[in-house]
C-alpha cells in the first residue's frame, strides 16, 4: 500500500517543542539582553563615579600641581588605559590629565553628572572641585562599554539558546522513545494471524495502549469467527453444489449418447454451458473457502494450464518456469479468463508468466474481438473501485479477487496493434 501523507504525531510534537524552545530562547535572549545592558550600564557608571571620587581626593591633595606634568599630562609607563580623566579650569583649559586622555576638554559640562563628548566617543562623568576653580572629568570610551555589553549579552544569549536546544533535543528523544511502543504494536498487528488460533496475541507495554490492544483483540476475534462461519458455509455449499453439477454432466453425457442426431448440437451446447457453470462454481468455492489464506506453491504456466480444459482455442504457455502462487486459485482465475477470451472469439491465446519486483505477473493476450479503449477504461475503473459495473462479468471480478489475494490486481489493456485484448494479473 502506498504511504499517504498523513500528519505525524512525532513530527507535530517535535515542531511544537522546537517552537516552544525557540520562543523561550528568543524571550530569554531579549530579557537577558535588556537586563544585562541595564546592569552593566549601572555597573560601569558606578565604577566611573567611584573612580572620579577617588581622583577627586587625590587632585584636591595635590592641589592642581601641574609642574611635573608637561602639557598637563602625568607621566606613566606604557599601558592600556580604559579609563581617562581631565582636570579642567574655569577657562576650559586642561590643567591635568591622564596619559591617554585627549588634550582638549572632553565636555564643557560644569555640574556633577554623566554626559557624552561632542563626537560621541566618550562617556563622561563630571565632578566639580571643591574650590570651584576647576572640574574633574572621568571618561570611558563608548566602544569599550559597547564591546563589554555585547560580550556579556552574547554569552548570556548563547548559553540560553544552548540550554533551550538541549532541552528540545532531550524532549524529542524522550518523545521518540515513548512513541516506540506504538510502532512496535503496529508491527505486531501487521504480523498478526487472526485466523490461526495458536498465533501469539498482542501485548500492551503502556497503559495508554491497553484500550487499543483490547479493541484489536476483539476485532480479530470477531473476524476469526466470521471467517470460520463462512468457511463452514462454503464447505456445505461445496458439497451441495458439486454433486448436482457432476450429476447434471453425467446425465447430459448419457443423453448425448442416446439422443437422435438432430438433438446432439443442442445437448452439446447445454453440456458446454454446464461445464462453464461447473468451472465458475468451482472457482467461487475455491476462492471463498480459502478466505485469503493462500496455499503457496511453486508452479509454472504449463502446469496451471494442464489443470484446465482447453478445447476451443490454442493456448500457448511461456515465461518463467517457477511461479510462486496458489495454483488452485490461479488456475480458477485463468479458467474464467480463458472462457471470457473464447466467448469473445479468441482462437489463439498466449499466457506468459513472470516475476517482477518479487510479484507474480501473469499476462494473457488473445486474438479475439477485444474491446474499445473507452470500454477498457470503464471496466478498469470498475475493477479498481471494486464496485458493481455493467459489463464487468463474474469472470473478470473473480480473476481480480484472485489477483488481490495474491497482493496484486487485474489490469486490462488494449494491445498496441488493436487486435484482441490483454489481461494482466500482477
Amino acid at each position, binding site marked *: 500500500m502506498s504511504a499517504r501523507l498523513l500528519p505525524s504525531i512525532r513530527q507535530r510534537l517535535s515542531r511544537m517543542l522546537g517552537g516552544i524552545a525557540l520562543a523561550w530562547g528568543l524571550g530569554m535572549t531579549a530579557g537577558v539582553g535588556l537586563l544585562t545592558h541595564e546592569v552593566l550600564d549601572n555597573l560601569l557608571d558606578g565604577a566611573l563615579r567611584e573612580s572620579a571620587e577617588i581622583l577627586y581626593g587625590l587632585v584636591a591633595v595635590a592641589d592642581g600641581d601641574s609642574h611635573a606634568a608637561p602639557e598637563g599630562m602625568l607621566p606613566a609607563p606604557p599601558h592600556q588605559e580604559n579609563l581617562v580623566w581631565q582636570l579642567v579650569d574655569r577657562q576650559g583649559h586642561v590643567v591635568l590629565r591622564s596619559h591617554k586622555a585627549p588634550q582638549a576638554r572632553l565636555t564643557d559640562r560644569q555640574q556633577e553628572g554623566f554626559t557624552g563628548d561632542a563626537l560621541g566617543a566618550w562617556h563622561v562623568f563630571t565632578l566639580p572641585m571643591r574650590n570651584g576653580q576647576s572640574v574633574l572629568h572621568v571618561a570611558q570610551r563608548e566602544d569599550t562599554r559597547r564591546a563589554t555589553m555585547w560580550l556579556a549579552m552574547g554569552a548570556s544569549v548563547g548559553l540560553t539558546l544552548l540550554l533551550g536546544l538541549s532541552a528540545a533535543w532531550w524532549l524529542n528523544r524522550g518523545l521518540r522513545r515513548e512513541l516506540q511502543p506504538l510502532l512496535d504494536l503496529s508491527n505486531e498487528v501487521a504480523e498478526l494471524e487472526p485466523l490461526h488460533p495458536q498465533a501469539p496475541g498482542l501485548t500492551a507495554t503502556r497503559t495508554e495502549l491497553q484500550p487499543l490492544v483490547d479493541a484489536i483483540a476483539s476485532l480479530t476475534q470477531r473476524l476469526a469467527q466470521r471467517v470460520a462461519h463462512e468457511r463452514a458455509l462454503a464447505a456445505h455449499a*461445496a*458439497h451441495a453444489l*458439486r*454433486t*448436482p*453439477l*457432476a*450429476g*447434471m*454432466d*453425467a*446425465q447430459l*453425457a*448419457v443423453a448425448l*449418447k*442416446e439422443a437422435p442426431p438432430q438433438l446432439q448440437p443442442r445437448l452439446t451446447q447445454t453440456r458446454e454451458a454446464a*461445464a462453464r457453470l*461447473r468451472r465458475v*462454481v*468451482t472457482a467461487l468455492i475455491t476462492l471463498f473457502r480459502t478466505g485469503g489464506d493462500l*496455499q503457496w506453491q511453486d508452479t509454472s504456466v504449463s502446469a496451471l494450464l494442464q489443470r484446465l480444459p482447453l478445447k476451443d482455442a490454442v493456448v500457448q504457455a511461456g515465461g518463467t518456469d517457477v511461479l510462486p502462487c496458489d495454483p488452485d486459485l490461479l488456475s480458477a482465475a485463468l479458467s474464467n479468463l480463458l472462457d471470457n477470451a473464447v466467448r469473445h472469439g479468441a482462437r489463439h491465446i498466449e499466457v506468459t508468466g513472470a516475476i517482477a519486483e518479487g510479484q507474480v505477473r501473469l499476462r494473457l493476450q488473445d486474438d479475439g474481438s477485444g474491446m474499445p479503449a473507452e470500454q477498457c477504461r470503464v471496466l478498469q475503473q470498475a475493477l479498481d473501485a471494486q464496485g458493481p459495473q455493467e459489463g464487468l462479468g463474474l469472470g473478470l471480478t473473480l480473476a481480480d479477487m484472485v489477483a488481490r489475494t495474491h497482493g496484486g490486481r487485474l489490469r486490462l489493456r488494449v494491445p498496441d496493434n488493436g487486435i484482441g485484448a490483454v489481461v494482466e494479473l500482477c
Partner: protein
Amino acid sequence: MKLLLLEDDPILGEGLRDFLQAEGHVVDWAPRLLDARCLLSAQHDALLVDWQLPDGSGLDWVRSLRRQQDKRPMLMLTARDLLKDRIDGLASGADDYLVKPFEPEELLARLHAVHRRTAGAPDGRKRVGDVDIDLQARGVWLRQGERLERIELTAREWQLLEALVNRSGRIVEKAALEELIGSDGSAHSNVIEVHIANLRRKLGRGLIETVRGLGYRVPAEG
C-alpha cells in the same frame, strides 16, 4: 468390467450407471452403504465409492476392504477437495481420488488407467496365444503368420471376453459369467454357451478352455 457404484445422489448415480453401461460395463448401483455391502461380490472388477453417504463413510468402507486384502481397483468420488481430504482418501487405500464435479469421461479414463495398472497391462494390451486384446481400445486381433487381422465382436462377446481375460488363468463359473455380462441367469439359458461358441469360431478354439463341471478359463498371458 463389472463395477460397483456407491453413490447416494440419484441424479449422479443414475447418470453414471447409464453412462458406464453405455460404455459396455456392467454396473451395480448402490445408493447406500448397506446396499453396497449386500451387492458386493467377487465378480466386481472395480469399486467406485462416494465418501459421504447417508448411512456411513465410504472412506471407512474402502479402508475395511483393504484390511480384508481386497485388491480390486477402488476410486473415491467425492465433493471434498481439500489437500488433507485427498491425502486421507488415498491413504485409506483408494487407487484414485476424483473430486466432484467431474466429467464422466474422465472417470472412465481414470478407471481404465487404474484397471490397466492392477491387471498388469500398463499399455492396456494382453496377448493370449495368437490373440491380441486391447482392453483400452476394445479391439481384438488374430495373429495369422506375420499378419494381424482385426476381429469384430458384438458387445456381449466383448463383455464375455473381457471378463475372462481379466481373470486369465482362473476358472470362471457360468453363473458368474452370466452375472458379469448382466444376463438374466435363468436356469435354461444357453446365452453363455452361444457366445462362447461364437468367440471360439472367431478367435480359435484354443483361446477359451472349458473346464467340465466348473466353468471356463482363458490361459494366462503368453
